[in-house]
C-alpha cells in the first residue's frame, strides 16, 4: 500500500534539551511539601487519571473482566473513591471490556499498530487500528516506528501517525514514543513534536515493555513540547506517562510537574493519564492511611 503523503514538511525544528537543567528542575518538583488535605485531593485525582492496564500474552477474558470490575470498584469499603479513567487492553479484548463497562463512564483504550514493537507493515497497522475501533475502542494507543525514527526518516514516522489518526475516526489517538528506545532527550523532544504536529490527541512515553519507561526527565521534555505547541496554536494535547510509576509519591510528583508546566487546565483525565497496573493499590493504601492514620498492607486490597 502506498503511503499517502501528508504535510510532513510541517515538522518543526525542535529545540535542543539541556539535560542538566532538566534534572535540576525535576529535583525541585520532588521537594514540594504537600500537606494532607492537598495530598488527599491529589491522590483522588491520580486515581481518576489511571488507565488500568493489562497487556500480556497471557491475558484472558477472565482477567480482562476482573480488571474491568476493579476499574469500577477500586475499593468499595471506602467512600468517595472515584473510578479510573479507562482500561487499556489488546484489540482482541476490546469487545469484552466494552461490554463489561457498558453502563459506566470508564473508557476502553486499545493498543494497536503492531504493539509493542510496531515492526509490521503500514497496511497491517491500519487494519489493526480499524479492528480495534470497530470493536468499540474509545481510544487508540499506537506505537511509532522507532527504527525509522532513529535512521532519520522523520517524514515516514509523521505520515504513519497521520494515517493512523485518520483511521481512528472519533477515537482519540495516543502516540507512544517508547522513549526507552529513543536514547536521548533531544530525540524525545523531536519525536514529541512529530507526533503532535501529525495529529496526536495524546503523547505517551512508553509501552511498559522497555526500561527505562516514564522517567520524570522524559515526561518533563514531553510536557514542554505540549506547552510550546499550545503557546503557538492554542490547541491542547494530552500527556500519558506509562510504565514505572508504581507509587503514590511518584504520581504526585508528576501532578506537581503538570500543574507547574501546563497549568490547571491539564489536571483532568481528559488531558492527563497514568498508564499503570500497580499504582492504583498504592494510592488506595495512602488514602486509607490518611483517613485512619495507620499504614496499610497489600493483604487487604484486591490483587488485580
Amino acid at each position, binding site marked *: 500500500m502506498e503511503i499517502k503523503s501528508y504535510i510532513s514538511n510541517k515538522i518543526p525544528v525542535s529545540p535542543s534539551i539541556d539535560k542538566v537543567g532538566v534534572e535540576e528542575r525535576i529535583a525541585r518538583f520532588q521537594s514540594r511539601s504537600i500537606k494532607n488535605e492537598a495530598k488527599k485531593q491529589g491522590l483522588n485525582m491520580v486515581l481518576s487519571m489511571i488507565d488500568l492496564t493489562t497487556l500480556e500474552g497471557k491475558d484472558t477474558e477472565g482477567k480482562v473482566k476482573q480488571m474491568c470490575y476493579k476499574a469500577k470498584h477500586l475499593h468499595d469499603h471506602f467512600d468517595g473513591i472515584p473510578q479510573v479513567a479507562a482500561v487499556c487492553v489488546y484489540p482482541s479484548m476490546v469487545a469484552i471490556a466494552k461490554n463489561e463497562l457498558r453502563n459506566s463512564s470508564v473508557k476502553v483504550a486499545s493498543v494497536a499498530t503492531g504493539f509493542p514493537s510496531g515492526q509490521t507493515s503500514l497496511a497491517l497497522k491500519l487494519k489493526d487500528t480499524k479492528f480495534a475501533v470497530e470493536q468499540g475502542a474509545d481510544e487508540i494507543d499506537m506505537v511509532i516506528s522507532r527504527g525509522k525514527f532513529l535512521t532519520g526518516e522523520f517524514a515516514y514516522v509523521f505520515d504513519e501517525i497521520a494515517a493512523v489518526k485518520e483511521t481512528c475516526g472519533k477515537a482519540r489517538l495516543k502516540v507512544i514514543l517508547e522513549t526507552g528506545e529513543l536514547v536521548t532527550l533531544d530525540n524525545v523532544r523531536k519525536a514529541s513534536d512529530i507526533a503532535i504536529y501529525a495529529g496526536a490527541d495524546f503523547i505517551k512515553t512508553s509501552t511498559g515493555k522497555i526500561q527505562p519507561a516514564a522517567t520524570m526527565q522524559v515526561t518533563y521534555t514531553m510536557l514542554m513540547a505540549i506547552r510550546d505547541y499550545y503557546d503557538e496554536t492554542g490547541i491542547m494535547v494530552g500527556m500519558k506517562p506509562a510504565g514505572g510509576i508504581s507509587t503514590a509519591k511518584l504520581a504526585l510528583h508528576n501532578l506537581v510537574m503538570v500543574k507547574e508546566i501546563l497549568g490547571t487546565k491539564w489536571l483532568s483525565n481528559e488531558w492527563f493519564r497514568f498508564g499503570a497496573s500497580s499504582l492504583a493499590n498504592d494510592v488506595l493504601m495512602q488514602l486509607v492511611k490518611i483517613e485512619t*492514620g*495507620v*499504614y*496499610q*498492607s*497489600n*493483604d*487487604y486490597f484486591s490483587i488485580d
Partner: protein
Amino acid sequence: MSRLEVLKTYKIFIGGQFPRTESGRYYKPLDSKGKALANICLSSRKDVRNAVVAARKAFGPWSERAAFNRGQILYRIAEMLEGRQAQFVDELMRQGSSKVAATNEVNLSIDRIVYYAGWCDKYNQVLSSVNPVSSSHFNFSSLEPMGVVGVVAEQSTSLIGLVSLILPAICGGNSTVVLASEKLPLCAVTFAEVIHSSDVPAGVINILTGSPEEMAATLASHMDVNALITSNLETKLSNKLALLSVDNLKRKFDYEENWVEKDKQALHYISDLQEIKTTWHPIENVGGASSSY
C-alpha cells in the same frame, strides 16, 4: 603533631543500606560519666514505614530459601561477629559494662547465634505432626513463618537482648524491623554492619535507632506487620502496643527474661513466630483400611 581522631557515624540500617534518618534528627546518648557517646539517628515513623516496605520485600525470598541455607547464613553471622569481638567489647565498655561482663555478653551472643543457626533446618521436623483423624484423610500440620516481625529490643542491654529477639525470628524465615535500645544503641548499629557483611539478604533485618516510645506505636498499628515482640517493656507501653496490635490481629509477645542467662534460648522463641498450617489430604480407603499412618 597529634592525630585528629576520626569518629564513627552511626547510621540506621534499612533494606541492606545505611541511610541517615529521613527526619534528619539525631540525639546524643550519654555514658555513665555523662559524656556523649556518639551522634545517633533519631528515626521517625517514616523510617519505620520504609523499613517495613524493605522487610516485606525481603520476606518472600527469605522464607522460601532452603532451611539448610538459612542455617548457613545464620552461622555466617556468628563467624563475622567472632571476628569483630574486640569492637563489640569496646563498645559495651564505653556504654558502661565491665570488661568481664562485656566479654561474656559478646561470647554469649555468638553462641546464641550458632544455637539458632542449628535450629533452622530442624524446628519444622520437631514441631510438625501427623494427626490422627477419623475420616479418610492424611492429616498433617507444619509451620510457616508469620511474615514481617516488629522487634522492640530490650532497653537495658545493647547486644544480647537484640540478638536474642532477632535470631529466632529470622531462623524461622521471618523478616524483621528492629527498634534498638534508645540509651545503649552502639552495638545495634555495629551489629547491622555485621549483618551487612554476612550473607543475610537485604531487608531481612532492618535496624532503627531512636525512641521506641515514638516509633513502637507505628510498628504496632502497621497493617503490614504480622507480629510484634518486645522484651521487659514497661507495662504502660506494652499495654498500649497490645491495643494497637488488634486491628490486623498481630501476635504480640513481651518476654520478661534476663537474656544474659545461658539458657535463655529455646525452641518456643522460634515457634511463637510461626503459624501452623494443617492440611487434610484425601486418601483412598481400600477395603476398610484405617486412615492411621
